[in-house]
């Protein structure tokens, strides 16, 4: 054979091989364990903007009565409890599922609780950890693109409205109303009020879990040394911050105004001053008198009073946490979920003395009325477990998230460091005895407000983040920053049909 012919032949073989490699792999029918469960048809209801849950629309209109300030509480850290699982009758084994969760305590908790589920049912749960920074982007691109990577995911209440409209999230009513699938003891009332954040046009899109809020953390040793009381109002908060401020050794307090997290810190002040983002008619009110007062107070902590570290514009949850743990700040608002870390002397040795934590939590500050009563409001977040429409095994995923948020699963979730939204677990005396901070959580929850879930909430959050950073860095006045944000949010809501 001539060399040119041999070359041509080899080239032809190469081309055929490459084309063959491009063919989709045909699964071996014998290796397929079970046929994929049918995916529910697209939800026709989702073609309209989901209606807002009524609860958080106007904090002022639903203002709860002022509560007496709770004294600072000292608690021992809660040790992780080995999951105790009740035996269940043998059931048909379900296909294994993949559950997405962002990195951090929630992921660690899920791994433990999912192991208990597998032990109980024999159904495999694969937990996939995703970095916090990329979590929303990753889930959105996967869900909206119809990706089959995940069968269930840990989702925040802000996200479902846009996903529902994009037909990317599976409605749960299909399973809840199916006696062959749903647990006969399932009672949706135990998830109130958190479930309202995941209900759109009559359909539930997630089982709630991790309803968090923030507390005021103070260094009791420093307060006692100066004869100070735990602040109950924002004026007192500033006075205490000034009294304890001794930079660069220690700052009076701390804020977290990082560009992509600023609202999640500023909201304690916004709601705390009586402000809101939208009113009950979805009109933007963030730039009203109360909102501007809150942002002025917040920005002044850095700009005028200088009672926070100078680089708070780079601080998010982690940096605020580090400053509290390292004893670099005397006070700070921080999520309740951080309690076990902040009060564990092994994890936060610099803020412990003789094996006892020096950081104590108390009610968030409020606004004092003329009659002397203090009105408190604070920010928070609500998470839950949902199923994307692209899930390969939605029914198996439903069975898992239903169990995870049932009294049994939620109790395990709580005992491993989580905050269940199932009231049966949250108020269980046996659980409260082991996690005493749930008692104060119960007192704070009635005046917790969350960012209103709309189809444009993600953009709304970005816009408010920008306004907060602009005010804190002094590039805009608080009024100007909030006016600009209000104009942008109004335009977004109008375009979205609100």
């Amino acid at each position, binding site marked *: 054979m001539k060399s040119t012919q041999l070359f*041509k032949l080899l*080239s*032809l073989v190469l*081309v055929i091989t*490459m*084309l063959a490699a491009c063919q989709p792999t045909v699964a071996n029918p014998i290796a397929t364990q079970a046929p994929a469960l049918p995916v529910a048809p*697209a939800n026709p209801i989702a*073609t309209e*903007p989901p209606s807002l849950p009524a609860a958080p629309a106007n904090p002022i209109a639903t203002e709860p009565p002022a509560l007496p300030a709770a004294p600072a509480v000292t608690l021992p850290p809660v040790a992780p409890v080995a999951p105790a699982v009740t035996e269940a009758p043998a059931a048909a084994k379900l296909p294994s599922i993949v559950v997405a969760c962002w990195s951090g305590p929630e992921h660690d908790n899920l791994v433990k609780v999912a192991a208990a589920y597998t032990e109980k049912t024999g159904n495999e749960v694969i937990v996939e950890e995703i970095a916090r920074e990329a979590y*929303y*982007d990753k889930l*959105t*691109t996967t869900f*909206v693109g119809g990706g089959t990577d995940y069968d269930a995911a840990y989702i925040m209440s802000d996200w479902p409205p*846009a996903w529902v*409209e*994009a*037909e990317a999230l599976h409605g749960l009513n299909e399973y809840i109303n199916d006696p062959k699938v749903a647990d006969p003891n399932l009672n949706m009332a135990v998830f109130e009020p958190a479930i309202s954040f995941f209900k759109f046009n009559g359909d539930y899109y997630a089982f709630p879990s991790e309803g968090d809020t923030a507390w005021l953390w103070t260094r009791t040793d420093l307060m006692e040394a100066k004869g100070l009381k735990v602040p109950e109002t924002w004026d007192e908060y500033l006075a205490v911050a000034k009294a304890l401020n001794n930079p*660069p050794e220690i700052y009076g307090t701390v804020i977290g105004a*990082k*560009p*992509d997290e600023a609202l999640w810190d500023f909201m304690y002040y916004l709601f705390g001053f009586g402000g809101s983002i939208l009113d009950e008619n979805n009109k933007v009110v963030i730039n009203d008198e109360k909102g501007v007062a809150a942002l002025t107070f917040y920005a002044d902590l850095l700009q005028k009073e200088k009672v926070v*570290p*100078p*680089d*708070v*514009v*780079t601080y998010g949850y982690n940096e605020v946490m580090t400053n509290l743990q390292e004893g*670099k700040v005397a006070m700070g608002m921080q999520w309740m979920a951080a309690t076990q870390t902040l009060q564990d002397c092994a994890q936060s040795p610099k803020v412990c003395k003789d094996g006892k934590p020096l950081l104590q939590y108390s009610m968030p500050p409020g606004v004092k009325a003329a009659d002397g009563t203090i009105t408190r409001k604070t920010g928070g977040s609500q998470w839950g477990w949902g199923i994307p429409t692209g899930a390969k095994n939605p029914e198996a995923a439903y069975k898992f998230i239903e169990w995870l948020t049932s009294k049994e699963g939620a109790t395990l979730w709580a005992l491993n460091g989580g905050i269940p939204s199932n009231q049966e677990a949250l108020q269980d005396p046996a659980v409260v005895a082991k996690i005493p901070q749930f008692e104060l959580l119960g007192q704070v929850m009635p005046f917790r407000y969350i960012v209103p879930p709309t*189809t*444009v909430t*993600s*953009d709304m959050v*970005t816009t408010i983040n*920008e306004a907060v*950073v*602009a005010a*804190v*860095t002094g*590039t*805009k006045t608080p009024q100007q920053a909030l006016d600009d944000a209000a104009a942008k949010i109004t335009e977004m809501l109008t375009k*979205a049909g609100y």
Partner: protein
Amino acid sequence: MTVKTLTPHHRWRRFSRQIEPALYIGPAFLALIVILIYPLGYSFWLSFHEWTLRGFKKGVPFVGLQNYLDLFSNPDFVNSLRITFTFVIAAIAIELVIGMGLALLLNHDLKGKGFMRSLILLPMMCTNVVIGLTFRLLYNYDLGLINYYLSQLGFARVEWLSNPSVAMPAVIIVDVWNTTSFVALLLLAGLQSLPDEPFEAAMIDGANSWQSFTYLTLPLLRQTILVVLLWRLIDTFRIFDVIYLLTAGGPARATETVSIYVYRYGFQSFNLGFASAAAYIMIFIMLGVAVLLARIMGRIEE
């Protein structure tokens, strides 16, 4: 005159000879279409349509040039263009000056020249993510090494990443640290390829080092400098990862380049039509500048 008719065998041979090149380049071309041309074309198509997360399942309406017009009336986009140009011009200018200095230094017969050459290449071996995370720690106000040494020397600590007027210089410093070594390496290669004769003649004529540099080295090195300029221009225009890790475009949009703006609209707001239009504006600008530089290079060659 005799007319020779082709037999089917000859026809087949001629046909196979004609399609032979296509067969060779076919797979590579197919791969190119799938991974480059199709996404480019699709994003160009998207830039004339309204694609939003909420509405794309109901349809992607054609909006003509609306996305482009909206961008130019959007102060945030105009700001990101300004930030990008500031970053590109400042970073490239500093890198060229320092890179040239390093190249001239390494072009001399210094002791340990080989070791020095290897040493300055170290920053190039780090990935951008590692560089971003490392500098974020170095720039930390309280715990960062840079502020520690500044305070030890009696200077005030600097809010590197939280002060809008300092954040951009801080980001430029990182880029300069990362890429100057490669600029120096390319310029050094150019220097070593220069002929000795003009320099010897200049020395005999009494030219000093500065005159040799300005009248001989720089003009002879123009071609290399333009190549370096073109490469750095394309690279700095599309910078994303280092800035995103350091500041995420903040504070107060002080470091928000067009790439970060595109990312925000594309993958956080999921407004792909708008983001595609912004990306295409950036591509057009880059293309314009690249073509200009290529023409200058062509003229120099002529």
